[in-house]
């Protein structure tokens, strides 16, 4: 144990602890900008400098390990003067238009400025970098002027996700984080996962907002129909200031109703539909010697990744559409027909934890109804801002059930939100179809949790089915390499692009692994309490097959619920 003094308080910590962590233990908050608890130490913003007795320079608290007998001042006049000066330097090149910034109120830079009492005029020349905003990507907006070069997004994109879209360019004052060769984000191999948005401390990287477009559709008198993804009910309350892991299904529906949505449907339903299609497809592939392993296709960021980096392996992808797109087709075709509404009068909206869904719904092949099947995809963050703008007191709302006929979802559909969930849901149904009986224990814990790649084996009437679930593109890449080398002896693989699965999606409020644990706990807890926990037992799903689709992977469902993939290797050139 190491003993030191921080601001006059004796602190005892383990060896290897940084000054920042030790100070936290002593209830002292040192402001930070580039520091993020899940990422590596950067020590580039220099905001967290502290005074250490016997040292001439001011070391950074985030990177300096404690030593025995150290005497630290975290807020001496010398330290505060230096911190304010550094902040002033950042301000001198940061656009001063906080009021119209999408990050306003949630911005780390703003918070540090408030904490340090930056109320005086900036004494330096204000010089904003002349870099254009990039709105080209439907998923992510990039405003390099607001970048403080903390390097968090670089680590996320390059080291954790392994996509390498963002990199530093130029040097000195002209340093810039941007896609290579000055390309626009939409023209790069960016998969739109939005993980960079999750870690950006300022308004430099934000979710591409589509709420204005949504309001316009409402003004035009379109019938707004919305589908709500499984993990939205887990993270929406958090986005509105409640603690992580509060499930708000009923309040969420009430809020959407008050916002003027004609119908509020549950994507758990289409998740069940996905299981029916994907599960049947897996069984067909097993029986008829199709391409194995079969890989899930629910995650649009993953699908784009596969199309870009391994187009020769798109055969492995399940042809089933993602739940969002299945729902889109069902709403504009079956529901419109049933209700006698012109599909052109419908504005089909989805609220997702995901930024890549914004890209998915604009894919040209997703127009089975003759219109764009899903018109607008918004994220949890956008929905939270809509709720705030609508003056809705979310905390006090009563519960409302989802609308029929797509208001019922099973627990299997709900756990799509966490990594391993699709796999678990599929196994439940496949097991029942093959063996004719339910799994002895529905909770299939082998594929749960945040381990990078989870593997398991299931015995289906004597046939061993080997499965794997990966989350985060780095892990997905590992599996892809194995498949390419012919070393992957799996039958079924689930891949989610975002670390942690959809509850860690780019459209959620900012996450840390600590928060993710809460969200994961909440989703499995909510699942356990649902009356129906198997996709094939969902009466709404059964009804759709009986009255309209016929059978899973049948002719009609093939037309509406399955899709094709493209080669996007050009994006890498």
């Amino acid at each position: 144990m190491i003993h030191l003094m921080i601001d006059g308080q004796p602190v005892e910590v383990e060896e290897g602890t940084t000054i920042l962590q030790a100070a936290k233990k002593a209830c002292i908050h040192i402001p930070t900008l580039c520091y993020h608890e899940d990422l590596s130490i950067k020590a580039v913003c220099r905001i967290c400098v502290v005074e250490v007795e016997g040292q001439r320079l001011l070391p950074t608290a985030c990177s300096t390990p404690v030593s025995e007998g150290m005497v630290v001042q975290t807020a001496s006049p010398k330290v505060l003067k230096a911190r304010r000066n550094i902040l002033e330097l950042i301000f001198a090149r940061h656009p001063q238009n906080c009021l119209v910034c999408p990050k306003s109120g949630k911005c780390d830079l703003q918070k540090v400025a408030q904490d340090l009492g930056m109320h005086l005029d900036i004494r330096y020349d204000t010089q904003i970098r002349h870099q254009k905003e990039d709105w080209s990507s439907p998923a992510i907006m990039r405003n390099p002027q607001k970048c403080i070069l903390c390097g968090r997004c670089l680590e996320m994109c390059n080291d954790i996700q392994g996509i390498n879209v963002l990199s530093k360019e130029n040097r000195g004052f002209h340093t810039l984080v941007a896609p290579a060769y000055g390309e626009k984000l939409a023209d790069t191999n960016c998969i739109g996962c939005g993980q960079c948005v999750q870690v950006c401390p300022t308004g430099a990287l934000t979710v591409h907002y589509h709420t204005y477009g949504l309001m316009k559709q409402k003004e035009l008198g379109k019938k707004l129909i919305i589908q709500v993804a499984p993990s939205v009910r887990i993270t929406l309350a958090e986005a509105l200031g409640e603690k992580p892991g509060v499930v708000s299904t009923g309040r969420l529906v009430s809020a959407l109703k008050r916002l003027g949505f004609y119908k509020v449907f549950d994507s758990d339903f289409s998740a069940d539909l996905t299981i029916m299609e994907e599960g049947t497809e897996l069984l067909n592939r097993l029986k008829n010697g199709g391409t194995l392993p079969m890989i899930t296709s629910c995650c649009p960021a993953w699908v784009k990744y596969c199309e870009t980096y391994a187009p020769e392996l798109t055969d492995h992808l399940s042809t089933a559409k993602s739940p969002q797109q299945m729902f889109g087709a069902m709403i504009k075709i079956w529901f419109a027909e049933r209700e006698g509404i012109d599909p052109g009068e419908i504005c089909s909206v989805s609220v997702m934890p995901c930024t890549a869904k914004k890209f998915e719904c604009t894919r040209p092949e997703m127009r089975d109804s003759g219109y764009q099947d899903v018109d607008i995809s918004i994220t949890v963050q956008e929905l939270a801002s809509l709720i705030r703008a609508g003056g809705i007191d979310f905390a006090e709302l009563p519960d409302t059930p989802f609308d029929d006929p797509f208001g019922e979802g099973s627990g299997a559909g709900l756990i799509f939100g966490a990594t391993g969930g699709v796999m678990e849901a599929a196994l439940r149904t496949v097991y029942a179809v093959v063996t004719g009986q339910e799994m002895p224990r529905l909770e299939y814990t082998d594929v749960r949790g945040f381990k990078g790649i989870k593997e398991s084996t299931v015995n289906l009437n004597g046939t061993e089915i080997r499965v794997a679930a990966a989350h985060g593109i780095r892990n997905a890449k590992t599996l892809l390499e194995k498949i390419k080398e012919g070393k992957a002896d799996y039958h079924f693989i689930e891949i989610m692009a975002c670390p942690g699965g959809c509850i860690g999606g780019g459209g959620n409020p900012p996450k840390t692994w600590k928060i993710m644990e809460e969200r994961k706990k909440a989703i499995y807890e909510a699942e356990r309490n649902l009356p129906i926990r198997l996709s094939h037992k969902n009466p709404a799903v059964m009804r759709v097959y009986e009255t309209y689709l016929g059978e899973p992977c049948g002719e009609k469902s093939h037309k509406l619920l399955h899709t094709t993939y493209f080669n996007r290797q050009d994006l890498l050139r």
Partner: protein
Amino acid sequence: MQEVHVLLKNRGKIDPKNAQEYADNGGFTALEKALSMTPEEILETVKAAGLRGRGGAGFPTWRKMQFTATAADPVRYIVCNADEGEPGTNKDRILLSTDPCAIFEGMAIAGKAVGAHVGYIYLRAEYTYLFPVMQAALLHAESLGYLGKNMMGSGYDFEIKFRSGAGAYVCGEETALFESIEGKRGEPRFRPPFPSIHGLFGKPTMLNNVETLANLAPIIRNGAEWYRSLGTENSPGTKLFTVCGNVVRRGVFEFPMGVNLKDIIYEVCGGIPDGHKLLGVQTGGTSGAIINADQIDMNLDIDSVSASGGRLGCGTILVIDDRNCIVDIVLNNLDFFRGESCGKCTPCREGGQQLYNLVNRIARGDGAIQDLEKIDELTETMQLTALCGLGHSTAVPVRTSIRNFRNAYLHHIDKDFCPVCSGKGGIYR
């Protein structure tokens, strides 16, 4: 004044590509001796000699050696910093082009001392034309069995590899240099961990300047006592000085540490040409202090120069005569620094630009007294908080010149330009 040639003894006398000529002139005897010594003995000799780093900071070389030698990881590296980026400095180029084998020998001795079997020479991009000479010398030395596998039958291997920079000044900073060798963007790392624990490729690494490594062979060959007979108590040995600017005779000279600056300028270099007057001197390159003409009676050793607010650094002496304006010189320095900042940490990236703006305003005659206060606070912040030496040293020429030439700044603020500036209308750039 007579030069003392220890490091430059072979300059112009041998064919640099011919390792045999180097050996015939007493080369590789130190390595042979070192190979028969234990690492501890080498370390003790270097410690007794009191050798200090010649790249700028003047850190005791034996301590670097000790830290690396005692690191837990058995895979270790020697890195020779030949990224001689300091404007106006040529000494490493002279060493590498006239006597490359001396550097190789020094590296091999260092390798033996810390238990490293691989050494890298990181050559600045502008010096890549030296590669053929160095390559030829290395191959020749290896073919004669002096270097490489099983050096001189000792059973100890030491391999030397060459790497080239791409033109960034910051890559002379040791950790940025590692990043560059590793193929990444040349940005410094934070410390701790220090390079002797976590250096190149994450392994314990001893990085030294070319000149420091060149000192190892003479020390081992002649012993610590002989070495201490040169130079001063705290800075033993000789030092290469690059004199540039307004003197009659410019070039690289070797003198024992503690030589008087005034003597160098007036006796060795022939004073200021064309009857002009001395205005000031910048020692230690762009990142060094600017002193005025009254302060030049100064002994050039590491501690005396530090006491003047600057540093001996790499031994560059820029002589400035009255045809120049100090504010212009400083502005030029800052223009260099703001362009060479890697952009990683805030104080250096933004501060370098703002400092340039502030001094530029004063140079144009648009400044105010308050700007001097701002400069004072900003330079202090940069010195206290920047990530690496580049940010720390950006402030040095500004702070020292304001202290030593305050009137020049005040005159510019009053639009009472010096004769040099008024000729150009007092406006620069």
